[in-house]
């Protein structure tokens, strides 16, 4: 489908051309580069210029398009000005499951480029909001061949619709000293365990899993995933006294920039030694972030499991809340598989259409959700006990009905 004209004969795009100016790299230049060889990229340029003129989008959603045997991984997209721009009349997106931590070799990257140049617009997003490699724009007949060539190259499609969305993770142990569990391996293992739930949407709505290996939460799991797995530790922060002294000598005010900013004021500095009341440390990471040579997470490492994070649609945004305060790193996979099974069973039974797990928990209440998945309530689950007296007491022994 490639147009081999050297001269792309690009449409006139005076508004978009403005966005080739300025120091930040320009997406318009990227579309124009693809338009040299791709008719669809050329029409995309034309349609986008029209949107800039009219201040209006021109895409239509939907249509069941995909690859054989999968119910997800492809986003159907149609132009509402297809007569004017026939090469983007059908302009579907493939979501390709990215490697954990978004690590590539140059050869892996080139193999994706070669496939996509043959079968689509040559435009990508590296990466989409959920984490996938986004291959932006092709026609229905190209979907299956693209998919199979990607599979030959070792890549599979990601999630879309009411499925398990492509799990994602931070770099974890690959390049971070703060990793409290092996986020890349866990993310990979979970992804492999639930291939069916990713490719054949079984749920009331989307379900996202994100693995951050420490409370800095570099993949925003608390805000952007239904199941947030955030690394933490149970024992004492590891302190290298000599490096603390070196940091102080280097101009860091340990009192002002470390102790005074500790959320529980659990640290004391006498000018010689840093003392930490570890029982009152909430593992926020601030002191460790400030002194990465001197301080490190403890050795008894694992993760806190949280539930229900999401963006606003439909009832408003939610941050995930604590479900299990600590699971040891060695037990994470087994614990999560059992937990996920129970959560999905409950959601399948009680969730409404297009109701995320977090909204289900809001609707039925966390206590009923805990009953449903068989977890005991613990005080770590709340910022405070309830402050209203309207308690739904369960049936009392000896009560008459």
């Amino acid at each position, binding site marked *: 489908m490639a147009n081999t004209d050297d001269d792309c004969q690009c449409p006139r795009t005076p*508004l978009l051309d403005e966005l080739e100016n300025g120091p*930040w790299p320009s997406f318009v230049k990227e579309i124009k580069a693809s338009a040299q060889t791709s008719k669809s990229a050329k029409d995309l340029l034309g349609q986008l210029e029209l949107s800039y003129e009219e201040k209006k989008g021109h895409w239509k959603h939907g249509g069941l398009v995909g690859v054989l045997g999968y119910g997800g991984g492809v986003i159907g997209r149609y132009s509402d000005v297809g007569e004017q721009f026939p090469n983007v009349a059908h302009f579907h997106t493939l979501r390709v499951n990215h490697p954990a931590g978004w690590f590539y070799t140059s050869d892996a990257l080139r193999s994706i480029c070669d496939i996509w140049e043959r079968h689509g617009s040559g435009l990508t997003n590296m990466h989409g909001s959920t984490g996938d490699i986004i291959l932006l724009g092709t026609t229905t007949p190209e979907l299956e061949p693209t998919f199979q060539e990607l*599979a030959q190259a070792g890549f599979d499609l990601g999630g879309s619709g009411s499925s398990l969305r492509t799990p994602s993770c931070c770099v974890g142990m*690959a390049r971070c000293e703060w990793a409290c569990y092996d986020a890349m391996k866990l993310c990979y293992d979970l992804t492999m365990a639930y291939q069916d739930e990713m490719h054949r949407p079984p749920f009331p709505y989307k379900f996202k899993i994100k693995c951050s290996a420490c409370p*800095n939460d570099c993949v925003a799991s608390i805000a952007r995933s239904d199941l947030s797995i955030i690394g933490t530790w149970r024992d004492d922060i590891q302190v290298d006294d000599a490096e603390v002294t070196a940091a102080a000598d280097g101009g860091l005010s340990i009192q002002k920039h470390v102790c005074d900013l500790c959320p529980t004021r659990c640290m004391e500095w006498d000018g010689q030694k840093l003392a930490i009341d570890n029982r009152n440390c909430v593992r926020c990471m601030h002191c460790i972030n400030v002194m990465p040579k001197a301080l490190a997470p403890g050795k008894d490492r694992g993760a806190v499991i949280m539930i229900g994070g999401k963006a606003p649609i439909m009832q408003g945004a939610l941050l995930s809340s604590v479900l299990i305060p600590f699971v040891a790193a060695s037990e994470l996979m087994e614990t999560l598989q059992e937990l996920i099974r129970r959560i999905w069973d409950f959601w399948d039974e009680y969730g409404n259409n297009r109701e995320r797990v977090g909204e289900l928990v809001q609707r039925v209440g966390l206590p009923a959700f805990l009953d449903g998945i068989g977890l005991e309530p613990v005080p770590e689950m709340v910022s405070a006990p309830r402050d209203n007296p309207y308690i739904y007491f369960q049936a009392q022994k000896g009560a008459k009905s």
Partner: protein
Amino acid sequence: MSTAPKRITDIGPPRYDKYLHPVILKNYGQWKFHENISPGVYCHVAESGDRIYTVRAGSPRLLSVQTLRTFADLADKYCGGYLRFTSRNNVEFLLDEPCKIEPLKQELNALGFPVGGTNNAISNIVHTQGWVHCHSSATDASGLVKCVMDAVYERFTHEDLPAKVRIAVACCLNMCGAVHCSDIAILGVHRLPPKVQKDMIRRVCEVPTLIASCPTGAIRPATVDGKPSVTVVDDQCMYCGNCYTVCPAMPMNDAENDGLSIWVGGKVSNARTAPKFSKLAIPFLPNNPPRWPEVVEAVVKIVDVYAANARRYERVGEWIDRIGWPRFFKLTGFEFTRYHIDDFKHAGLTYARSAHVRY
């Protein structure tokens, strides 16, 4: 008869360690500490004493295969072909020879991919598809990102802010871009209810699903010309676009009434204070492509006022919590309006319920 190759499905992504640099593989889980060598450059040191150097550069996220091949060529030239991308659309090259850092930085900068985005800088903007590829967008995302990053470019290549500043852009209320927990967020908004296309509804939509899709119950069943259809109670619509996603016969795009809102003070990290949502700073700015001057001016204003007033390590939201919202509005000059006061589902949670007032 030729035999078709066997169809491959459900193989999942490449194994998590397939594309890792040999130094990373050798020291996996054995990192000791890291140092920030210069803006955009990290050095991670392993227990073994091995070092891996990271050079980070900004990208527009929307990348052609030509540019990806350029990245691949750079990776071959400087670091054995090993590279990665960050959760904020930066590209990172992973080097084991420090002498190659400077030549790589120079080549990236010459190609127009600025090195930076680390530590107390403004990193690249997380964003959505906008007019490039989304059905419900009220604005473009890539264009807004380009304009804002052009304006705060020096904040990307330098690390001179009190703390990191994370910016996000989402082109509608779906907020596919983590807008709800960003230091500064730009959000496309619609301001008119969907326009029911009664002839189209019959052909392409399932009416009960459409009615159920509305979070506020604003979509009511109706019989139009003897056929099942819907009406919209305009006062109840908060323009989320959920109906349009399930039914294309409910378009919302409107050139004059669509625009942008600005949000501030959200964060995801647990450092010091708990993660928190972004809060409304400006309810509406005009949709003014190709350069969106009003939006750019507002973002630059927030960044400048924050940079001048926040204490070291304070994120935007932590700074505002310390000085109070009245002072934030005074310092920025943004008008406080009735729209800033929540009247949706959990409204009361943000009302001031103490006599703690700054004068």
